[in-house]
């Protein structure tokens, strides 16, 4: 009879999605003005900001923009003076819009392709939280065909269907060292899809004010049969059968927005937006592995997010017929409650400022550039699940440029 020993290895590869993953970079003109736009009619980006406003665009639009994003996070583990900084990686949120309709008609069609959620964080393979996360590359691309209808002189409405194609690639160290002491590695990689909708109401009671109200629905995104790749020492590989797959569903939350546009003079536009993001749908994150073993169990982890609010303000000054200057800023409250902060996107209340410039290159051709700086308040936390304890501080730098052609 052999020695009876049960080898159970505790392992928790868990993917977390945080509020930090909402990417608010849906149009260069709007970014320049603090990412406001629910209550304005600026350009094709209204497909995202307020489908109800699309019909009021005086022309047809085709436009594309990109906002290379650099997420710089610093972690100081509790009780130490060590600092770990995330590596320089540039994420590329983009936006593309097309709007078409007969001139001065009561309807217009639109298409938007944009990235409202995503994240790119790489802490490297030797930092203190490597067993929680090494790197994450998350993308959600929304495709949104839209119809916008003018009801009367004051009121217009619009709505669109949303198809989301999401992808995720997460790596994490596994505390199973090989004979040279090197950690095991887990990689979860897959693509998924989800569906939702976007609707908006636009009211323009006078030439001095416009009001917008929108709802972007929850998009429950399911990753089916993603690859679950585990590289561990040969003697314990049996506990991590290969190939293996996983299934997980992530609810990308709904956003409700109210926006106001004010036009005090010909040259000035002022915009105010309030967003309420229904993060409270995100209660748990479940991971279902196709093949389970005693070492590799399905996971079910609490997230308990709370709803978050964003307050935005911005202004545009038309310096001359060709040039517009923009600036803005805002404040976003975190959805992540104490004890649930993770290194994927170490979330905290954040403030941001933006600046932008629009320039008319030629008849019907606009270029817009924007810059956004976001600062996440430093937050000292012990994660309930991983017990990773320390202070996170994050800055985000986002330049951006777009081209719009209209006729």
């Amino acid at each position, binding site marked *: 009879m052999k*020695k009876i*020993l049960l*080898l159970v*290895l505790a392992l928790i590869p868990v993917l977390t999605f945080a509020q930090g993953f909402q990417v608010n970079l849906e149009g260069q003109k709007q970014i320049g003005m603090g990412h406001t736009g629910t209550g304005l009619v600026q350009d094709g980006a209204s497909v995202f900001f307020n489908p109800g406003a699309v019909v009021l665009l005086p022309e047809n639009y085709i436009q594309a923009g990109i906002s290379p994003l650099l997420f710089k996070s610093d972690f100081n583990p509790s009780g130490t003076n060590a600092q770990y900084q995330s590596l320089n990686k540039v994420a590329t949120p983009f936006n593309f819009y097309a709007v078409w309709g007969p001139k001065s008609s009561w309807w217009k069609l639109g298409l938007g392709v944009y990235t409202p959620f995503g994240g790119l964080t790489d802490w490297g393979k030797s930092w203190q939280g490597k067993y929680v996360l090494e790197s994450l590359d998350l993308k959600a691309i929304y495709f949104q065909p839209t119809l916008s209808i003018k009801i009367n002189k004051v009121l217009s409405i619009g709505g669109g269907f949303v198809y989301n194609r999401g992808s995720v690639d997460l790596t994490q160290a596994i505390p199973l060292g090989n004979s040279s002491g090197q950690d095991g590695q887990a990689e979860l990689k897959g693509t998924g899809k989800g569906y939702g909708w976007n609707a908006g109401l636009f009211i323009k009671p006078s030439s001095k004010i416009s009001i917008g109200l929108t709802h972007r629905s929850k998009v429950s995104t399911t990753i089916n049969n993603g690859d679950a790749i585990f590289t561990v020492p040969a003697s314990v590989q049996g506990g991590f059968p290969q190939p293996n797959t996983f299934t997980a569903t992530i609810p990308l939350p709904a956003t409700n927005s109210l926006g106001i546009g004010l036009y005090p003079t010909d040259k000035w536009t002022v915009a105010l937006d309030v967003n309420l993001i229904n993060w409270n749908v995100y209660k748990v994150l479940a991971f279902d592995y196709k093949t389970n073993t005693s070492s590799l169990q399905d996971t079910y982890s609490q997230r308990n997010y709370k709803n978050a609010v964003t307050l935005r303000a911005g202004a545009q000054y038309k310096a001359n017929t060709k040039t517009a200057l923009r600036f803005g800023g805002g404040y976003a409250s975190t959805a992540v409650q104490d004890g649930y902060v993770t290194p994927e996107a170490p979330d905290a209340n954040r403030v941001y400022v933006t600046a932008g410039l629009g320039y008319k290159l030629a008849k019907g051709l606009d270029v817009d*550039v924007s810059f956004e700086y976001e600062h996440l308040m430093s937050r000292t936390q012990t994660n309930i699940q991983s017990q990773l304890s320390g202070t996170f501080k994050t800055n985000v730098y986002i330049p951006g440029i777009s081209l719009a052609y209209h006729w």
Partner: protein
Amino acid sequence: MKTLKHFIYIIVGLVGLVACKPEINTPKPSHGTANFSRFIAVGNSLTAGYADGGLYLQGQLNSYPAIMAKQMLSVGGGTFTQPLFSTAQANGSGYLQLTGFSSTGSPITAPVTSNLAIRGILPVPGFGNVTLYSKYSGDINNYGVPGIKLLNITYAPYGNLNGFYERLLPGDSPTNTTPYLAFITAKPFTFFSNWLGNNDALAYATSGGAGDVLTDPATFAALNTLLINTLTQGGAKGVVATIPDVTSIPYFNTVTEGAILAGVQKANPSVTGLYINALVSGTNYAPRVATPADLIVLTFPTSKIGQPVSTPYGTLPYGLTPYTPIDNQYVLDANEVTLTENAVTAFNSSITSTANAKGLAVFDAYTFLKNIKSNGLVTNGISLNSNYISGGLFSLDGVHLTPRGYAIVANEFIKAINSKYGSNIPLADVAAYGGIKFP
């Protein structure tokens, strides 16, 4: 167009800002009221960095005093020198290596026998064979000596009986006459850690109560007071640790009565119990059926169970009849467990009261490890517990720790020091230290 150019310059300039990384202001390093310029570590195998059933270079490099000393550097800590084995003799005394798992999931280990630092085997009359190791002659900050008991610290000939101590002394066994206490206090120091006393209970327990005796608590108390008085007489401050409950280590919790019985019953369902030779009282032992309260040692060769043994009553299966009980050396039976626990409790009360009287920091290893035994420990995303191999804390011998386990212990010592002396020695990164190495 000019404005646009300007604007692009501004943006390029802003992008340049990314060079400005976010930084978190950390508290200024402070040694508080302690002075770490010469830190010495006093103790046994745990202090020496013993792991996987042996003392070897890799283990020494990851000893908890070495980890502490590294962390002390930022608060005025000095050079910390350990009596390391040479690279050529890196495997020191030899140790166990995990070579794989059997089909039933049992670990298979094999001893490492190359590049040892063994100098010879010396038979000492009236004692037995002493393994001698290559001498170490440099400076020493880590005085951890595997196998030493608190009982041994004033015993002059001890340097002839323990090869790990002998290797630190200038003379060859059997000519040594320097007691451990005199040896460690020969050179001045400003700070010390002391974790002696484990073997005063553990040696008895690991031999199933058969191969050694528990140190008398009164003797322990007297020696502990002497030790602490001597260590503090030059004004040094320090930290001491209590002795873990022996039942909290995998050495006694892996090969269990229930597991062995279940294995036997698979082959022979009629078997209802294992027999052990258990302590009745004093030195009286009698066979009885084992219960889960009887702890079987990790090294028990379970293949012995059921083997034919010839007895006056005929040939009977080992471990399954009152005439063929499992040998005493493999079992710390319930009564022996109680004796051990009582001794540990008594030892810890002397350790704590002496430390408190002298104003020393105390790391309560007893409570800490007992808590891990019941609740496990999650840190930095690593889930650890007291199980053999899978737990990640204990090395292959089931008694000593992995480098990760030693890092956790080092951090507990540091926390105790910081809270006592108002220092802020930074904690070590537990994730940077490895666990068991799997093939």
